[in-house]
């Protein structure tokens, strides 16, 4: 390639030989992968209390079952990184991969490659196309969440008539979009005078969620309430309402992560918020993986054994439900530490 003025031919040959020797030694020194069960747990992104709690639950299940659970994911909601991590897990020859997907179709090729390599795949919290995984652990039915949001809002606002703002994550979040669809459907049937004139994206950013709410409420002061359909937005929305001194006029409810909303439940600016237990969903995902690995996963039996969660029900051929949404109030929020 280059003019060999720099090194003599002999030196280059010796150098090459040494390089080959080192590499061969290294290759020979490595041992075969362990026979234990290793499960790759991939969240939407890693730096988030919700997903960290899911990991906690997963590690709890892993300890009970004697598995190893490896938690790795992108730092932001990036599907390319998730795809790469799946490929790395495939090379590691893990036993199963459980992922909460940033995009339902983009991860399918990587997951299919995993399946081709004999690795079990399942999803939790956010699904992919059904052909890429054996089962999806859904934390709540979409109708259930929609209903819960609407009922909570009517209770908090004291009325079901008027305009209500919806603050969401990014406009393409699949879970959020289904919930919004369901809550609108439910409201149209039960509370026809409930209007939802706007859906604003908070982009999973606290400051942004606050600012969009601030600007909207200033322009539309007759708004009766704001529903925050993603956990990160809720504190931002409440801050906006508080700053405008509209706590008594505008009710806030929505998804609530206890550590984020504790202060607001205590000071009354938030009455109710709902979530499911992320610890439980991580825990459940590992048990679901176990059922798949053991071959005991059978939709016809109607349920899956999930350790301390009891039996989780199949709500369709390939979806298992975690349970009902849990409503946090100032009375019960202290029991939770995530």
């Amino acid at each position, binding site marked *: 390639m280059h003019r060999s003025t*720099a090194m003599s031919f002999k030196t280059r040959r010796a150098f090459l030989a040494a390089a080959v020797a080192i590499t061969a030694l290294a290759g020979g020194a490595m041992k075969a992968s362990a026979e234990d069960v290793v499960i790759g747990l991939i969240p939407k992104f*890693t730096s988030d209390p919700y997903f960290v709690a899911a990991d906690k639950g997963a590690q709890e299940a892993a300890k009970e079952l004697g598995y190893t659970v490896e938690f*790795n994911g*992108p730092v932001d909601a990036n599907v*390319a990184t998730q795809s*790469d991590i799946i490929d790395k897990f495939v*090379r*590691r020859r893990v036993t199963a991969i459980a992922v909460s997907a940033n995009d339902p179709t983009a991860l399918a090729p990587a997951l299919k490659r995993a399946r081709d390599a004999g690795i079990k795949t399942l999803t939790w919290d956010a699904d992919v196309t059904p052909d890429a995984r054996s089962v999806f652990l859904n934390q709540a039915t979409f109708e259930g969440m929609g209903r819960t949001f609407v009922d909570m809002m009517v209770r908090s606002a004291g009325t079901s008539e008027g305009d209500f703002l919806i603050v969401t994550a990014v406009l393409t979040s699949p879970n959020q979009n289904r919930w919004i669809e369901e809550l609108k459907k439910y409201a149209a049937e039960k509370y026809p005078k409930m209007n939802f004139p706007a859906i604003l994206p908070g982009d999973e950013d606290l400051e942004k969620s606050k600012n969009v709410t601030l600007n909207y409420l200033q322009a539309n002061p007759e708004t009766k309430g704001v529903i925050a359909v993603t956990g990160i937005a809720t504190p931002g929305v409440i801050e906006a309402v508080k700053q405008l001194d509209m706590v008594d006029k505008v009710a806030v409810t929505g998804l609530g992560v206890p550590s984020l909303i504790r202060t607001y439940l205590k000071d009354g600016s938030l009455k109710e918020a709902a979530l499911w237990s992320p610890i439980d969903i991580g825990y459940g995902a590992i048990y679901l993986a176990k059922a798949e690995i053991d071959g005991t996963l059978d939709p016809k039996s109607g349920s899956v054994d999930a350790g301390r969660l009891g039996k989780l029900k199949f709500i369709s051929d390939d979806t298992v439900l975690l349970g009902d949404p849990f409503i946090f109030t100032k009375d019960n929020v202290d029991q939770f530490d995530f």
Partner: protein
Amino acid sequence: MNARSLSMDRFRVNRSMVLALIFIIQIAVTSLLVPGYFDIRGLLDATRSFSEAGLIALGMTLVIITGGIDLSVGALLALVSVTIGFSYQAGLPLWAASLAGVGVGTLGGLFNGAFITYFRLHPLVVTLGTFALFRGIAYAVSDANAVSGFPDWFSLFGQTTLGWFPLQFLFLCLFVVIFWVVLSRSAFGRYVYAVGHNEVAARFAGISTNSVLLAVYTLNGFLVGLAGLIYTSRIASARGNAGLGLELTVIAMVVLGGTKITGGSGTIVGTMMGILILSYLQDGLTFAGVRADWGLIFIGVFLILGVFVNEVFRERSR
């Protein structure tokens, strides 16, 4: 070539040898520490994730040799991807959409080059603006949506292998050879170095520096277009947040390879080494289960370190 450039050649070769040694040691150490890592199939498989950045690094090498920089490559990648996806969704046949994507990439590079040469603005400033502009357009066009559902044949670019080698890696190797020839054996390559050494002197020597700069940035854009096509095919999805942070990785690859950030010197071989070292470092870390957040830190450190070390070398060789 006179005696001075000969000694620079020696320096260049030495550095590439050092880098190659570092690379081999890196792979060896990782293989020793992490069971299961040393698997030829697996290591080749890893090339799938970095071939796109590698392609762009080739173009970026030329850009940096001329003394400039291009911060907009990640954003342009997103724009290319979105173009492919959304024009396909709008009804354009996929092959045409793919061409459109590559075309958009080339135009983006041309846009950068035109602003830099016509308005006489510093590349840093222009590409900082286009860094936001391109991604902004990508977001606006896609409206934060994503397009997927591409036909199976589309995965040709990003998901197939030829024997054991992923196709995009072979593609990368091909371009490495092409660019090596262009940079070290053609007149254009010599002009690129000349402009980087001393733009005013080059102009006085009769080189049309504006054309050279324009060509370099457009070429970079073209490579981003190709990379965007491969990326979209690999992920089978077109979305606006593709390539976030890509510019950092690409620049780090180039400077690790020995290219001076101030311009005037650098080689394709060096860049190739930089690509391998950085990519397999990340690969090894992820494989070992290290959290992706560390990856951010590592790239940043290597970027700064790479440039810092280059500066130290510069003092030595005087």
